[in-house]
């Protein structure tokens, strides 16, 4: 894969480059802010971009805004956002924008996950291939938020596990292996999840995950605020 890395910490930037090179990928550009990220992606058209959320100048959500813009302008570039903290709102905005554009190709992970090199590189490959890679923590928080918003029938523990693994980007076969159940059982759980959310199951794995997560998150109707204040209820 050809990859652009955007991370303001030089030491993490170097670490990422080392990991990716070790696994045979090419880091075509490593930049320290969102503006340089945009121009690097415009120039190199990489397969994937790894983007830190907090970057100069504001150190708030520059990475998320950049990620959404990249997904809009470069459908061929998957974006894996990684962050020191999980902010459900950021994840929901990213997913909302991704599902709005009709393709997945997004991921949102805690920074610590890079410690597990193989899993991190796998997640990046999934995102580059148009899939999803979501931190389990994000799924848990989104599910919690949905319970309160709609009083939906809560998912069973098993269905929750299946959805979390789906959101991480795994196939039915992989989910079955992880949970040590049959693939038929996984399919049944997936069907239940969809009926609980009154969604029509779609054909591809990525589309179905996005459908669920899009449904759970606030979605594109809740744009990132440009002003410091906000009003919601």
């Amino acid at each position, binding site marked *: 894969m050809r990859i652009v890395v955007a991370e*303001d*910490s030089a*030491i*993490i930037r*170097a*670490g*990422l480059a*080392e*990991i990716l090179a*070790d696994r045979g990928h090419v880091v075509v550009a490593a930049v320290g802010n969102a503006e340089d990220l945009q121009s690097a992606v415009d120039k190199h058209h990489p397969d994937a971009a790894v983007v830190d959320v*907090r970057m100069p100048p*504001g*150190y*708030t*959500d520059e990475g998320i805004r950049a990620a959404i813009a990249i997904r809009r302008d470069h459908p061929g570039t998957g974006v894996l956002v990684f962050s*020191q*903290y999980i*902010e*459900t*709102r950021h994840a929901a905005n990213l997913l909302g924008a991704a599902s709005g554009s009709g393709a997945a190709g997004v991921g949102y992970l805690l*920074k*610590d996950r*890079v*410690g*597990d*090199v*193989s899993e991190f590189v796998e997640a990046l490959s999934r995102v580059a291939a148009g899939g999803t890679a979501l931190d389990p923590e994000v799924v848990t*928080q989104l599910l*919690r*938020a949905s*319970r*309160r918003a709609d009083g939906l029938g809560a998912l069973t523990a098993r269905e929750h596990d299946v959805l979390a693994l789906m959101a991480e980007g795994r196939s039915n076969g992989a989910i079955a292996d992880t949970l040590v159940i049959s693939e038929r059982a996984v399919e049944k759980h997936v069907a239940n999840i969809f009926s609980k959310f009154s969604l029509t199951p779609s054909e591809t794995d990525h589309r179905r995950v996005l459908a669920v997560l899009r449904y759970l998150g606030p979605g594109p109707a809740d744009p990132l*605020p440009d002003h*410091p*204040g*906000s*009003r*919601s*209820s």
Partner: protein
Amino acid sequence: MLRSPSPNPDGLTSQQGDETMQPPTRPAPWIARSISTEFGRRHVRGVAITRLLVAIAAVTVGSILCVSGQWWGALLFVPAALNLWFAYLMPRWKRALDDLKSGPRVRELERSRALVVEDAAARLRRIEQDLHDGAQAQMVAVVMKLGLARDRLGNAVAESGQRDLERVLELVDAAHRGAMEAITELRDLAHGIHPPALAEGLGAALAALAARSDLPVDLDLDLPERPSAAIEVIAYFCAAELLTNAAKHSGARHVTLETTHHPGLVRLRVSDDGSGGARIAAGGGLVGLADRVKTVDGRLHVASPAGGPTVVTIELPSHA
């Protein structure tokens, strides 16, 4: 300072189970400020009352004597006047002078306290940023390197099957796990020092807080302008503590978090449908909140009758 604080903001103060943390009641105007203990105040009060009674007795007896033609009875008016002066008028006069002198000083103290409070908030924010850019980033880099080392060693062990390499792999694996735990601990620590979500404003931070809460939280935010950094931090930590309390102690099924910011006043209200009975008691979490709120002359009001519901209202000025 609270601009025109309303003494009874909710119309709830008369209900059972109501508590409001406010500054201690002002002593009577004839007790000098320098007398600060309850014992001292009681003593002064006792002496003053005795003097007053003596003065009344002297005036009464003097008047009777005067009326009955004994002119020297008027002499009794002198000790009466002296007693009245010492017991009541002199302290009052002194106090008025004190106030005149201390007014500017109080204002100066308020100003310097505001500076200290804002400075402390800014300092904590810098510490969190330094942690994020320094120790946290370093640890992530360490974890990446250890992850790489572990994978390579794993391959080498699988190929060669050497015992000492296996031992090294175990060590690297343990170091990797320890470093991962350290990252989690650092993250929690940094979050406790200054919640990073506040960078995007109090509204965003409270929304994130509500998303993490164990209980369903209804959020009602009206924050057209940002209060000062120190006030945002106090409001955030109060909301966090109150949501935790509601989830832990009240048995509530639902919580509402309202936060408004209107000229000069930030009002944060957390209501739950739990069992009530929350008290501002020594050693309790609410005392800690009350103390924190008082550092900026804010107010904490708890309405929590037995059986619920519990409504905690916190009022803060826009600036420390």
